[in-house]
């Protein structure tokens, strides 16, 4: 495949460039491999894989175009490359919800309790733009036709499946225990919703950069598995364990279409009935130290390494480097030879000023897809959600 650096958009409008990045026949083959389960562990790598990971394909028509929007921050028109699109993004804001006082050994500590509220924007195929939504959580299904949404303040008591063409909710289901995240299974059949007793994004701040917490039990109470076809839900309670940090959110995520995991180190995993299960063999290869968010290539031959410039892609058969890339993090495979990544501006004087890019495995081709975020480490900036088209 040939890829050339795209020019910057001269003014505030999107640019749409179409280039072949895979022959259609090859893409069909790619998706067939995906459905066969070659990447069933991909989304188990990162605890926030639902936000910037990918899903397995479900037979959707292949796409061979690259779409960029470098003129708008946040993006307005579709960003996509190969089999992956930015289906949605969120921006966050911290709102004060109270004060707290703690008697500590050396005096009294006063903190401000703040809550992170996310505003979700979803791509509208009808209007070809990202549109703000009213939902407290959104996750778009593979194929970009439907989205799971949570209603009202978190933890939400109701989950809906939204038709993205009409923006109407097709069906609702009650979640009596409350949920604060929702994510589609890799095969698009089920929705995983993590339940909490209270808002999981409520944190005590000493100042803008210092957070404080006391010991206690985790507010995470279990998870729902929602059958997206029948819209029936099953709640699986999970032992709570200790609260590990100042930030209580600790969402469950998909390790495969039939396996849920709940810790960064995957110490906990469950089947869809909530029974504890061992992680499948091969999972070690995809551990946090060895594999990044993008995981395995569509054909299963390459493994994207963890975040950190330069990133690496490993040939699984030989164990050797297939290439290094001048990017911050590899996010998702666009095809077997290219990845969507987070790239730095210029020589990377500031790693938080970054953008979505398309990079080749050999690292020689880097094509910017979005505008640069002013501070990619901030909750206030836009956070991309990548989904298979």
């Amino acid at each position, binding site marked *: 495949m040939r890829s050339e650096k795209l020019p910057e958009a001269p003014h505030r409008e999107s640019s749409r460039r179409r280039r072949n990045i895979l022959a259609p026949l090859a893409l069909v083959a790619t998706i067939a491999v995906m459905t066969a389960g070659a990447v069933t562990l991909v989304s188990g790598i*990162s*605890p*926030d894989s639902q*936000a*910037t990971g990918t899903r397995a394909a479900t037979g959707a028509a292949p796409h061979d175009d690259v779409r960029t929007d470098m003129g708008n921050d946040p993006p307005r028109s579709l960003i996509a490359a190969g089999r992956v699109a930015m289906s949605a993004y969120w921006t966050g804001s911290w709102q004060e919800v109270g004060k707290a006082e*703690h008697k*500590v*050994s*050396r*005096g009294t*500590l006063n903190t401000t309790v703040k809550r992170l509220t996310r505003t979700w924007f979803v791509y509208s195929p009808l209007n070809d733009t990202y549109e703000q939504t009213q939902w407290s959580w959104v996750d778009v299904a593979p194929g970009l036709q439907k989205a799971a949404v949570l209603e009202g303040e978190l933890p939400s008591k109701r989950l809906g499946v939204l038709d993205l063409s009409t923006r109407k909710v097709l069906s609702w289901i009650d979640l009596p225990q409350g949920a604060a995240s929702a994510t589609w299974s890799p095969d698009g059949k089920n929705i995983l919703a993590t339940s909490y007793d209270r808002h999981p*994004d409520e944190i005590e701040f*000493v*100042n803008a*950069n*210092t*957070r*404080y*917490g*006391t*010991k206690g039990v985790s507010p995470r109470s279990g998870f729902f598995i929602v059958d997206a076809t029948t819209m029936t839900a099953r709640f699986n309670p999970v032992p709570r364990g200790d609260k590990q*940090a*100042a*930030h209580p*959110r*600790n*969402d469950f995520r998909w390790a495969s279409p039939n396996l849920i995991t709940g810790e*960064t180190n995957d110490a906990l995993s469950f089947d869809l009935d909530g029974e504890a299960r061992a992680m499948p063999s091969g999972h070690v290869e995809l551990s*946090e*130290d060895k594999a990044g968010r993008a995981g395995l290539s569509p054909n299963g031959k390459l493994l994207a390494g*963890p*975040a*950190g*410039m330069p990133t690496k892609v490993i040939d699984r058969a030989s164990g050797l480097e297939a290439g290094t890339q001048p990017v*911050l*993090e590899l996010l998702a495979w666009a095809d077997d030879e290219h990845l969507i990544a*987070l790239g*730095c501006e210029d020589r*990377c*004087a*500031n*790693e*938080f*000023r*970054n953008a979505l890019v398309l990079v080749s495995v050999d690292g020689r081709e880097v094509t910017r897809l979005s505008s640069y975020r002013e*501070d*990619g*480490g*901030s*909750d206030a900036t836009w*956070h991309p959600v990548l989904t298979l088209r």
Partner: protein
Amino acid sequence: MATSTPAHAIERCVSNTWALGCYDEVGYTIEACDKNADGRRSGTSIDSSDGYTEVFDTDGANNGCTGESAWFAAPFPGTIYTLRAWRQNGNYGSQENPVQGTYTAS
């Protein structure tokens, strides 16, 4: 791999490829340093009998550091505390590639 300074030192540090976290037992400051250009902040925490305190590196430069006062969590001499450093997954606040050490305050 956790590394620690000698017993007589006043600053304790833990470090790995991605993050360096230090605690100054005299100045009561916590410092978070980023060692890797990955687009993520690094975080450092101390966990003592007075609670759990964490700070984050806000310097976008590779190897940038940010320090904050944490007098309220300062462990008394002879008490045990845990120092931890990691790189922060910004979207959900989870800690990736953590490294930690347990110390007795001097």
